[in-house]
């Protein structure tokens, strides 16, 4: 039997559910559209890398894009072909995200046969799976959180090797589905409660988690009944169903954990740090399918509801089906004044058309007739927003600081604890779009931090370069100084040798001088004949120098023999 929650969370709103309209029929089967435009990023993290090429034929369940690193630790998830056919394009297409992003998508032209891939292997003994093998199965099946965030599930099950890791003592299954209009989880539980319980068991066994709590809002009596019936005596011991009061946003992870266990997850920490992991009920169902049937995540249940839809219902949708095809299959009449929302009225993403593919995080396609938009008035500081904030923040202060871009104060007021649930927006009497301001502020702070990192890094490199150049200069100067000292030393010895040489040369010159003065010249005692010969030679010499003076022709060449005098 189910229990009632003992704890509450602050704030929140009681909203009209609008749930009955989409719960009138059983879950419809998936349509196979002519084309499937499958985005490579349907999850938090990096886009997967395609492993098929244009022209390849693919089968249903075949992996068409996988993780980009072999260590399998990057935040990314595998993508599989939702139906059989041919890959006709790998190109950019708009993908449903609040930032009007486009992303790479693999377009498959379906052949209508819907043939399964032959590598589909159910696990024979699922209760013998250990943590790592379970993680591998989930990774290969491309399972991500189907509650709306799309965090790759295999990373939530990562066990690090350090012993400091706190053991997990509770598995929390989020079946709250607190947003109005959305009923996909409730419908799933009603029809597939047994398989969900099996999925829980597999996870509990593999991770050795003793306790499991399924948190479900009390506005889902039939689903609660279905779960209770699916529990047998053995599983009743391990799995507890707790009803939580219907209050938006009870399905927020932190709020749900507080309501179920009374514990608040500290800021910047994860449920893991308190020994708990939290999975959406549809994710658990996908895990069970991957184990029992061996099939990867290729479709999900989507609630199609709102105004102007003839047959609002829950239906299975293959990923990559365009939303307008899904809407048309439910009898949708288009109208100019409508808002198409992926998700619920509080946190859903407003799309400008239905030309977007359904992805893993599409839990609902909601069509609403546009109300006349009211222009916002200034904030009158009434404080209603603070009264309803489930994160106990002061939205009015966050708003003032977002407008004045006072990022320090925003951090002081814990802006990153804001879960963007939209409660403050809903109650504001001035109709200010508060959540948009917080998104802007968060983005600005992230940009600022990343810019600062880049500039700090550049500064470091520049300073290191300055240091390197200085160091080089210093080393060069040192080397020069050393060499100079060495040279100086050498020169000291050489100059003394030079001195000795110098004095020897001087001595020799001195001796020569003395000799010269001592030894008479050979021209001093000449005979008359010798003097006559000298005169002749002198005359001949002067002729050579002054041929005109002596009127004799002389040869220009100087006879070396003639210069052998004096």
């Amino acid at each position, binding site marked *: 039997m189910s229990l009632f929650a003992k704890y509450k969370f602050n704030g929140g709103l009681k909203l009209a559910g609008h749930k009955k309209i989409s719960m009138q029929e059983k879950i419809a089967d998936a349509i196979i559209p002519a084309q499937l435009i499958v985005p490579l990023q349907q999850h938090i993290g990096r886009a997967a890398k395609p492993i098929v090429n244009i022209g390849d034929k693919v089968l249903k369940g075949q992996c068409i894009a996988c993780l980009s690193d072999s260590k399998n630790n990057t935040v990314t998830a595998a993508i599989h072909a939702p139906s059989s056919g041919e890959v006709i394009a790998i190109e950019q297409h708009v993908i449903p995200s609040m*930032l009007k*992003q486009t992303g790479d998508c693999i377009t498959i032209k379906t052949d209508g046969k819907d043939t399964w891939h032959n590598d589909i292997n159910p696990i024979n003994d699922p209760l013998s799976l250990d943590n790592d093998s379970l993680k591998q199965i989930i990774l290969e099946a491309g399972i991500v959180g189907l509650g709306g965030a799309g965090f790759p599930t295999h990373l939530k099950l990562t066990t690090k090797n350090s012993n400091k890791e706190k053991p997990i003592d509770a598995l929390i299954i989020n079946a709250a589905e607190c947003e109005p209009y959305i009923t996909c989880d409730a419908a799933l539980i009603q029809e597939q409660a047994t398989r969900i319980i099996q999925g829980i068991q597999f996870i509990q066994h593999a991770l050795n988690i003793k306790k499991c709590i399924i948190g479900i809002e009390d506005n889902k009596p039939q689903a609660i009944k279905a779960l209770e019936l699916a529990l047998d005596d053995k599983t009743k011991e391990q799995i507890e169903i707790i009803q939580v009061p219907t209050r938006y946003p009870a399905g927020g992870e932190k709020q749900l954990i507080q309501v179920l266990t009374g514990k608040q997850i500290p800021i910047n920490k994860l449920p893991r740090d308190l020994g708990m992991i939290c999975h959406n009920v549809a994710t658990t169902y996908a895990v069970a399918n991957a184990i029992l049937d061996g099939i990867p995540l290729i479709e999900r249940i989507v609630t199609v509801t709102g105004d102007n839809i003839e047959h609002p219902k829950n239906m299975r949708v293959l990923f990559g089906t365009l939303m307008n095809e899904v809407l048309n299959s439910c009898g949708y009449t288009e109208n100019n004044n409508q808002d198409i929302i992926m998700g619920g009225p509080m946190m859903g993403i407003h799309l400008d058309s239905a030309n977007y593919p359904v992805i893993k995080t599409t839990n609902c396609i909601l069509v609403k007739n546009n109300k006349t938009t009211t*222009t*916002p*008035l*200034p904030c009158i500081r009434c404080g209603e927003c603070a009264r309803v904030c489930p994160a106990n923040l002061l939205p009015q202060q966050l708003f003032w600081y977002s*407008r004045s871009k006072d990022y320090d104060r925003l951090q002081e007021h814990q802006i990153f604890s804001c879960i963007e649930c939209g409660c403050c927006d809903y109650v504001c009497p001035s109709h*200010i*779009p508060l959540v*948009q*301001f917080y*998104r*802007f502020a968060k*983005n*600005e702070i992230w*940009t600022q931090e*990343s*810019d600062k990192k*880049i*500039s*700090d*890094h*550049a*500064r470091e*490199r*520049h300073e*290191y*370069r300055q240091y*390197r150049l200085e160091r080089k200069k210093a080393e060069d100067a040192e080397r020069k100084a050393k060499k100079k000292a060495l040279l100086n030393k050498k020169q000291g010895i050489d100059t003394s040798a030079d001195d000795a040489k110098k004095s020897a040369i001087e001595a020799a010159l001195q001796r020569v001088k003395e000799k010269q003065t001592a030894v008479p010249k050979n021209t001093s005692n000449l005979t008359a004949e010798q003097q006559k010969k000298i005169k002749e030679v002198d005359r001949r010499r002067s002729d050579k120098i002054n041929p005109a003076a002596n009127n004799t022709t002389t040869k220009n060449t100087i006879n070396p023999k003639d210069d052998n005098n004096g």
Partner: protein
Amino acid sequence: MLIAIIALSVLAIAFGLLLGFAAVRYKVKTNPVVDQIDALLPQTQCGQCTYPGCRPYAEAIAADEADINQCPPGGQTTILALADLLGKDPKPLNDEHGEHAEKTVVYIDENVCIGCTLCIQACPVDAILGAAKLMHTVIASECTGCDLCIPPCPVDCIHIIPAVEDTKKISVKLPIAPLLINESDQ
């Protein structure tokens, strides 16, 4: 009358001493203003501000020799941050120093590079890898887009390309609600 003068003087001296003591004992340690200014600059080290690097520019601002609107890579955001820090009035970017442009990086055309190392010596953050007579290449993730390597290259093989946008970086605009705009926002 005399008593009044004496009393006031005594009070003045007493409070003066008290304040002086407090100023010394409870002095708040802050970063010198040059460090604070440098922390706000984008560290491109491009020299467009007429100073040889961001730190010299920061020192000049601190010494009141340079104005706060001389940094094109920093753009208006940096000017506003500096104005806020120093208590000055923000002003528009001074065109003489250049325009604020999208972040760029450079790349070396390897077919043309002759391995002269002149660009390596010019790069203020050592973002070019290479050695004499060996191929030079720019490490794009470290390049700040200062373009100081382009003039020294003797064969003009360095080209400017826009920096690859980080796909994770998203740009969200401040929602504008007409009645919320005050004169100061315009």
